[in-house]
Every structure is written in C-alpha cells, then in structure tokens.
C-alpha cells in the first residue's frame, strides 16, 4: 500500500473517532500517531483492512492519552471505552473536516498546516520540511490552531471560500522537502469536487490542472525561471490540459462565475495557444475584465495591463498601467516589459534592474537581472 493511499484514509478515520465521542484535537493527534506507526510498519506487511487497522490503533492511542490525562487530573473518563460493535460506519465526515481546518478564525498559515495534516494525512515532519521551519515550530502551530477551533462542532456547514483559498495557497507553494505540495493540493481539491457541487471548486481544480500542466517547462537548468513566452510548449502535459478544460467547461456551463473559474479560463486560453503570438489576448482581456468585476484586485489590474499590451499594443498597455500605483508588486517588471515592446530600451533596462531589486523570489530576481543585462546588450549593439 503506498503512502498516498494511506493518507487518503486519514480524514475518515478522524471522523470515526469523533463520532465515537473523541474531541477533534485528541482524535487528530491519535490518528497522526497511528499514521506514523503505519508508515513504519506497513511496508513489510500491510493489513487486509487498512482503515479498520488505523481506527483500532488510533482509538487505542486516544484512550491511552485520555486515561493519562484523566488520571493526571483525577477525573473520570468521559467517553465510552468500548467502541460500538459492528463495522466502521461509512459516513464520510471529510467535507466537515475541510471546513473545520480552514475555519475563518484561523490565520491562513495555520489553516494550511492543519488542513495538510488532518485532511491531507501528512506528518508534521513533512509539513515542516515543506515550509522550511523546524518540526517543533510546525507542531506548535498545529496545536495552537486546534486549540483555537476547540469546541467548534464538526457537524456544521462551513465557509467554502476559505477552504478554496487554503487549497490555492498550498498549490502555489509548489514543492518543498519530499512532498509535492502542488500535487497534494490537486489531490485534496479533486476530493473536494467529489464532495461538493459548486462550480467554483471545479474552477479551482481546473486552474490547478492547467498550471500544473506547464510545470515541466517553467524552469530551466539550475532552477532558472522560463517565462511563458519562452516555454517549450511541446513539454506541456496535454492530458492535464484536456482534463482541466473539460472540468472548466462543465463549471462555466452552470452560469455561476467565480474568480477561480475566470482565472482558469485565462489559463485555458494560454494552454490552447501554440505561442504567445497566437494567443487570443482579446479574450484574455475580457476575462480579466470579468475577474475585476468579481475581485477588483490591483494585481488583476496589473496583469490586465500586460494583456492589454499584447491585445492592443504596448502603448495601450502602458496607458492601462499608468492608472495603477507604481508600488504594486511586479509593477516595475510589467512596465519594463511594455516599454521594451514599445521600443524604449533605455527605460526598459532601468526598469528591469529596478524590478530585480523589488523581486520577491530568487528565481524572479535572477531572471529580471538577466533581462536587464539582455536589454543593455541590445542597447550596446
């Protein structure tokens, strides 16, 4: 049995413990311990009923912990020690767990960590490695998050918007340690699509698949960033693109547009083109307009200005950019690109250098430095 199949069982097992009377925080701890035990022992001999095994081991852990706590406090055990007889109930509490772990009262970083552990079935060590923090720090972040939501019932509908944001954050984090967070986010979103009936959930899944499809072409040797225009499109995963487009079309047909569907539509138009020159930029600008109606975010305005530059020429793009505040992230990079296309090489070189100083990641910084150097070289020749 491979690790990801094992991980898929985690939310259901937590649900079983909670239904038997365990509180969420203790149930989640007990299942995490059972999960670690399973990872250590199952490679030799996986049990015939993996879920039953996890329930049994986790329940025993839970009882041990509760007994220790009860005797420490001199109290009676509050839960029935003997689980009800018969097979494990088939009810799936997974959706409720998504809501609880991404509860709006939790800071996004904590919601991400808790979701990855309780819904994703990752170990604290894996999550810590993925986010480059010490394991003890991550363990603390998770237990504080659990204290914060202690007492909230598991059987209430939650805020789907925050769940989607958490999954989007996980996806955007990419890889870290031995866990592929983008793939994990896709797995969790797929599962959520099966549990809900909301076009925005499908929209988010489509968005992830369409971006994931380009992953191999996004970086060159040594982790160097390859911008969309220079990507080798023959390396895009056509299977993922087809799946993303199909899911998106079905979602759009339901006529309840949301920001993830609109972003996925833009990704789909890129995926559909053989080059940036052949891209349907007019339609992309229209989707950015839709997106603005939905979110009115300055970042969307910035991306829209770049798309306008492709659709109507760099001068139109610069005019759209002029309406925005220059302290926006990536403003200088967008301005550099549009000025270069407008033939203002001196300005473009200055702006690329400025953009590299404002970059928020090393690959971006290095890419923008290289762009500045490239334009300077054009100026010399």
């Amino acid at each position, binding site marked *: 049995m491979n690790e990801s199949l094992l991980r898929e069982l985690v939310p259901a097992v937590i649900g079983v413990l909670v239904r038997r009377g365990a509180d969420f925080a203790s149930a989640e701890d007990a299942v995490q311990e059972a999960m670690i035990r399973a990872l250590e022992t199952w490679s030799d001999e996986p049990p015939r009923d993996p879920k039953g095994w996890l329930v049994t081991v986790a329940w025993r852990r839970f009882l041990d912990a509760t007994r220790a706590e009860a005797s420490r406090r001199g109290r009676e055990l509050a839960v029935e020690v003997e689980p009800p007889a018969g097979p494990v109930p088939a009810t799936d509490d997974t959706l409720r767990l998504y809501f609880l772990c991404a509860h709006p009262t939790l800071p996004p970083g904590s919601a991400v960590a808790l979701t990855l552990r309780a819904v994703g079935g990752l170990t604290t060590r894996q999550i810590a490695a993925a986010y480059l923090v010490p394991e003890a720090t991550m363990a603390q972040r998770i237990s504080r998050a659990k204290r914060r939501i202690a007492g909230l019932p598991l059987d209430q509908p939650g805020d789907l918007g925050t769940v989607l944001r958490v999954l989007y954050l996980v996806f955007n984090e990419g890889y870290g340690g031995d866990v592929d967070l983008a793939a994990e986010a896709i797995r969790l979103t797929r599962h959520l699509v099966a549990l809900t009936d909301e076009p925005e959930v499908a929209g988010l899944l489509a968005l992830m698949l369409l971006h994931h499809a380009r992953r191999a072409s996004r970086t060159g040797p*040594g*982790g*160097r960033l390859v911008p969309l225009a220079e990507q080798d499109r023959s390396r895009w995963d056509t299977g993922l693109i087809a799946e993303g487009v199909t899911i998106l079309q079905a979602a759009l047909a339901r006529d309840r547009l949301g920001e993830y569907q609109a972003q996925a539509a833009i990704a789909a138009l890129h995926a559909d083109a053989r080059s940036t020159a052949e891209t349907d930029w007019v339609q992309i600008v229209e989707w950015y307009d839709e997106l603005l109606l939905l979110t009115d975010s300055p970042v969307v305005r910035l991306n829209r200005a770049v798309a306008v530059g492709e659709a109507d020429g760099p001068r139109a793009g610069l005019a759209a950019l002029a309406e925005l505040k220059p302290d926006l992230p990536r403003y200088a990079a967008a301005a550099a690109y549009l000025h270069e296309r407008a033939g203002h090489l001196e300005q473009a*070189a200055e702006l*690329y*250098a400025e953009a*590299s*100083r*404002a*970059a*928020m990641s*090393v690959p971006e*910084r*290095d890419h923008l*430095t*290289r762009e*500045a*150097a*490239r334009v*300077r*070289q054009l100026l010399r020749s």
Partner: protein
Amino acid sequence: MKYLLLKHYRGGPAPVGDWVPMDRWTPAEVDAHMRYMRDFAARLEESGEFVDGQALAPEGAFVRYDGEGRPPVTDGPFAETKDLIAGWMIIDVESWDRAVELAGELSAAPGAGGAPIHEWLEVRPFLTELPTVTD
C-alpha cells in the same frame, strides 16, 4: 564549527577594481555567475559542509520600541546606511582556515568580462552551545 559567510550589497572594505552592477554585464556573464554560485553550494553539500543559504531583499527597515502604548518606530528603507546585507551562507567546517578558504572561493565568482569579482565576504564564527565537559 559553524561559520556565517555574509554577503553585503554595500559596506565592508573598499572594493577591489571597478565594480560594474550586474545588470550591466552580458546575459552570458550573469548566467556564468549564477552557475558558479549554484555549483559552489552543490559542492559544499557534496562535501558535507553546507548548512543553509538565504538571500535578502534590499528593501526593509530598522525598527525599535517607542514606549508603552505607542507603535514601534521604523526607520528605512536604508537610503543612508553604509552597510546592507544581501544574504548569507552557513557552513559547518573543520577549521577557521577552511572557512577562509571557502569564502575565498566564493569571492572568486566570475563577473563582468568573466574575471573574478573579488567581492569582500564577512566570515563570522557562530557561538556554540555549552560543551558537556567544561573543566
């Protein structure tokens, strides 16, 4: 023994030779520099001497407490400061001499025209935990 190799945007002893900002190198020179830095870190991982490496954005601020009930005072971005840290590498090596040798190699990264940049790097030993045997 752990050492910090500190890279500065500004500050340190007078630079050797004419400093040409990176955006005025050729793209090939930029690539060669980045490849050198990457290979250097990879080599240290290989030899079991690499601990960590991080880069810092030039923007930021100084911050200090300003008394009960008042928000902290900030000063910056640092237009005025003489010294600005760009990033660091932490290495775990057998001796000070080895740390100096490695800093020297890092400082030989190629720059404009493919010549070593001779950049000054600050090398600082970490204070250690208290050893078990102290007497």
